[in-house]
């Protein structure tokens, strides 16, 4: 559950703290797909394995569009996952017991 009103309690500003992690990170394998022309695309193998593990039917005709969508999602994810936050950063949703 996300409770924005509850989240209005004053908190220590995480922005003012130094980042606990370096911005230098290993690049995810999926970012370099374009370099794989002629070689097996790791995203194909990932989709095949994930589909099997999750029992998701991915028909051959759907696969290129699924891959295009997954590539876009992972590209978007790179935008925020490369943004350093302190180790103490809390996710937005707050569970109230």
């Amino acid at each position, binding site marked *: *559950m*996300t*409770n*924005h*009103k509850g*989240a*209005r309690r004053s*908190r220590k*500003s*995480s*922005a003012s703290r130094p980042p606990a992690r370096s911005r230098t990170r290993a690049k995810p394998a999926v970012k370099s797909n374009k370099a794989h022309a002629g070689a097996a695309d790791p995203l194909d193998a*990932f*989709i095949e394995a*994930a*589909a099997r593990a*999750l*029992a*998701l*039917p*991915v*028909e051959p005709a*759907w696969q290129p*569009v*699924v*891959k295009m*969508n*997954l590539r*876009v*999602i*992972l590209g*978007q*994810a790179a*935008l*925020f*996952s490369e*943004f350093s*936050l302190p180790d103490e*950063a*809390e*996710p*937005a*949703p707050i569970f109230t017991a």
Partner: protein
Amino acid sequence: MQTATGIVNAVQSGAATATETVEAALDAIKLRNPKLTAFTAVTAERARKRAAAIDEDRAAARPLGPLAGVPFAVKNLFDVKGLPTLAGSKINRELPPATRDATVIERLQAAGAVLVGALNMGEYAYDFTGENVHDGPSRNPRDVKRMTGGSSGGSGSAVAGGLVPIALGSDTNGSIRVPASLCGIFGLKPTYGRLSRARSFPFVSSLDHIGPLARSVTDLALAYDAMQGPDPDDPVCADSPPEPASPRLSRGADGLRIAVAGGYFQKGMSGEARAALARVAKALDAEDEVEIPEAARARAAAYVITAAEGAALHLERLRTRARDFDPAVRDRLIAGAMVPATLVNQAQKFRRWYRERMLELFAGVDAILAPATPCTAPLIGQQTFVIDGVELPVRANLGIYTQPISFIGLPAVAVPVPLKPLPIGVQIIAAPWREDVALRIAYDLERAGVVAAPVPKY
């Protein structure tokens, strides 16, 4: 079709009955819906009974509600007693009929409004176009060859086309504000947690909002006020009393500090979007520009949370009914099912960081102006549009200005700037729980004639 305010005045004064009003709405739907494909169900019998009850109340001098006799319709993801809740899908047609109305329908009805039907939408709300492969595209009354925007496409179409004065939609990433912009009407996406989502079909719990669309600010506020209040049936709904906006509208924008969003929000928009924003900013004397920090990352995080949570919701249906989905929705959901949990967790951490920065920004301003959509309504089926010489995909880009706002649940009113030949919206964004601020500014703009939602001929 009059505005809701006009109808209430007529019914309360006796100038018209609720029955006459509802019959006029049903006639209009029968005549004009075939051009718009806005409605997927018409609840005529129920509407007639309800209208008759209102007329009996008036005859017996019992008090009438603030929406007495006002016809309204809802995106077909809201439970309507007696109908299966389609959520724009083929699969949900097999669901048993809902046994109870959504909370917000109950509240509008308690205020005297009369439900006349359920509205077309993009499948499972994962859509910005208003197109639907099962029911056909909802069509834009400003030009029926053009898309309404989505996913609350039928809601935009029905209100802009004058079939109903008020419709309900839902907004996860822009699904109220995008159709409001493309159809040239007003739309309110309230603060996350302000209005109950109970008995509406979900999409992304972290980001789902519901809200009204209308042709005037007064109508928008009337509907919004009638739906407020805590609801134990929705754990996200705030446990706080209603804060009616209607009594505050006449205060207008006086004393409010209004700025224009810079940076990310100044890029990628068409000349029409820029002209509309400039017109609104000028009318409000909003000369300052503020930078919404890291908006591109905010949009990205909303994108990833949407894909993953949407996929989680539909995982079993994807396993067993994949062929029954709209292919465009299915292939995005399958990809979403494969997003590593680590990325979703990072997105939710970024979300809190971003929220804190935005609250700091609102210490210095009361409202921020931003485009609602990058362009006016594209043609139905159009896949790309060109802005600044760059060709961009329609589906992914209609929500670029709305996603960073709903990501942290900020209230926003989309106001229609009636450019020719097509209108386009501007967002008025306020601090959390200050819908009244955004509505007051919208009211001022409407009073000044800067924004308006006339019913077109179609």
